[in-house]
């Protein structure tokens, strides 16, 4: 095995050495429109540090081959590295067993796997899937496809004006026909951290499995599958400083073994004749075809990098950024933050009076500030708050107070142009 690419060098005693961390991210040295890039669109996709980029190159230059196939040196190396990445990810989320980590192409793919493998097998006419108003479209649409096919229906947990799930309403929705609860750990549109542990306990009390969409949580908080006790947990590599095209579905082995495969093909079988195919055991059963080997191995390096920096330090730094940004944005007259939950990740969704978010986004880009504008693939959230769209600044551990100041100065410029 290879030496870790990162270590404690990023973890000085006490807080986070942000400048040292920023030096690891080549893209942060870019200038956009003549201004230093201020990248505040991390909830959409985050950037990769040099050790992660290096891992990709090292694999491609010295280790690449197809896995689980041949007896030659490269194939054995690639297989060991790929399975090594699975082990790293299992440790990263504290899964009980490595075989509970399925590599997918991302969170969307992972949720579709559950919708197909669990939903199409265990959901029947009249059954119910409980989702929340805060869900990303990727945790809505796959379930709509299932309930349409099966004659089942979706029930939706409402949110209050702060963007928090109304827990009593959630409890009322759990019934004898509920076959699954699907909930985002952190809302991508508002940043709300949902009380998933309490939700899981309540659902399990009625024998209902829970799928957690963890795309927005994995880069920001310590994940512990055994303590959480969820049945499924999905997340993406490219939101946690890894590459696109790779993600993880964690599933309890008991469920994964009962589920039907999502895709058919090579690697997911034990034997094939034209009369009968015997499926592989997990995780192979759900990894048909040649997987994104390089991306999986690189994601392993991203998990190492995060662990090297330290999730506690990341959390402390991001909490400080959120507090600072919330305070600064709140001081701007004519700007309203959407989503003011008590427990929030470092996301600020906002609207500027009299200015459409797309105009805000285009003019901020002129200042080198990258935010996301639109409905954030969460139209039910926008509908709930009676707005078509928001501008969203989402932070990562490499962001600074100075970048918050650049955002605020940019918003002031927008207001001046439209004043």
């Amino acid at each position: 095995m290879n030496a870790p690419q990162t270590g404690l060098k990023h973890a000085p005693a006490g807080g986070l050495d942000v400048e040292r961390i920023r030096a690891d991210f080549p893209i942060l040295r870019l200038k956009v429109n003549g201004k230093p890039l201020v990248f505040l669109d991390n909830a959409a996709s985050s950037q990769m540090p040099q050790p992660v980029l290096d891992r990709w190159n090292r694999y491609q230059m010295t280790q690449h081959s197809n896995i689980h196939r041949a007896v030659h040196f490269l194939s054995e190396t690639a297989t060991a590295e790929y399975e090594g990445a699975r082990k790293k990810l299992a440790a990263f989320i504290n899964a009980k067993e490595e075989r509970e980590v399925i590599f997918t192409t991302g969170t969307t793919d992972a949720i579709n796997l559950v919708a197909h493998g669990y939903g199409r097998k265990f959901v029947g006419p009249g059954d119910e899937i409980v989702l929340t108003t805060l869900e990303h479209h990727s945790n809505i649409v796959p379930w709509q496809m299932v309930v349409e096919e099966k004659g089942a229906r979706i029930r939706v947990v409402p949110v209050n004006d702060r963007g928090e799930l109304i827990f009593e309403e959630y409890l009322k929705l759990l019934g004898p026909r509920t076959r699954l609860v699907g909930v985002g750990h952190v809302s991508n549109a508002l940043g709300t951290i949902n009380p998933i542990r309490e939700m899981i306990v309540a659902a399990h009390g009625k024998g209902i499995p829970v799928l957690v969409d963890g795309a927005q949580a994995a880069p920001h908080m310590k994940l512990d599958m055994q303590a959480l006790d969820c049945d499924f947990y999905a997340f993406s590599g490219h939101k946690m400083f890894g590459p696109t095209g790779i993600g993880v579905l964690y599933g309890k082995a008991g469920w994964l073994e009962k589920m039907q495969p999502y895709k058919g093909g090579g690697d997911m079988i034990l034997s094939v004749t034209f009369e009968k195919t015997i499926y592989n055991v997990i995780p192979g059963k759900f990894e048909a075809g040649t997987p994104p080997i390089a991306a999986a191995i690189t994601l392993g390096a991203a998990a190492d990098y995060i662990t090297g920096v330290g999730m506690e330090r990341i959390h402390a730094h991001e909490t400080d950024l959120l507090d600072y940004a919330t305070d600064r944005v709140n001081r701007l007259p004519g700007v309203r933050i959407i989503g003011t939950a008590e427990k929030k990740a470092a996301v600020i969704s906002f609207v500027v009076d009299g200015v459409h978010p797309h105009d805000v986004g285009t003019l901020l880009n002129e200042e080198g500030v990258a935010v996301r504008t639109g409905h954030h693939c969460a139209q039910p959230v926008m509908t709930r708050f009676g707005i078509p769209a928001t501008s969203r600044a989402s932070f990562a551990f490499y962001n600074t107070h100075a970048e918050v100041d650049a955002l605020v100065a940019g918003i002031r410029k927008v207001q001046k142009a439209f004043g």
Partner: protein
Amino acid sequence: MADSKQLYQEVILDHNRKPRNWGVLPDATHKAEGHNPLCGDHLTLTLKLRDEAVDAINFQGESCAICKASASMMTMAVKGRSRDGAERLFQEFRDLATGKLDAASPHHLGRLTVFAGVSDLPTRVKCAILPWHTLHAALNSVASTTTEADEDPMHAPIGGSA
């Protein structure tokens, strides 16, 4: 890089603040709704055609500044024009916004050329074009239109014509 400073000129900001021909015509002969589901832009276009010419035209809706200013300036540009003239302007405007306008050939865009800057901002092209698609739909008695999917120049099939 995109030159949005050039795009957000005073004329566009002014039409956004004070849109012309705002409202809904009670005696419209043609009407259409335009939507951009991805950004929430929405507008209602009503117009009165007399002797195959645009006698009156109004719009109303919720949208970004680019879309609203484009709609406002469009209503001014097509009022009094023949149906064919309005349709020709639609084609010219679409070419302008997607950077395909042949500068050498004569056109009828006049002040609408302030929108040339959107061709450098691919995600904003549809904001500028939505009112024109809606006009085109209204003139052809289509109840609603969108600049998403095949109507969206950014989603045109590869190798497809402009």
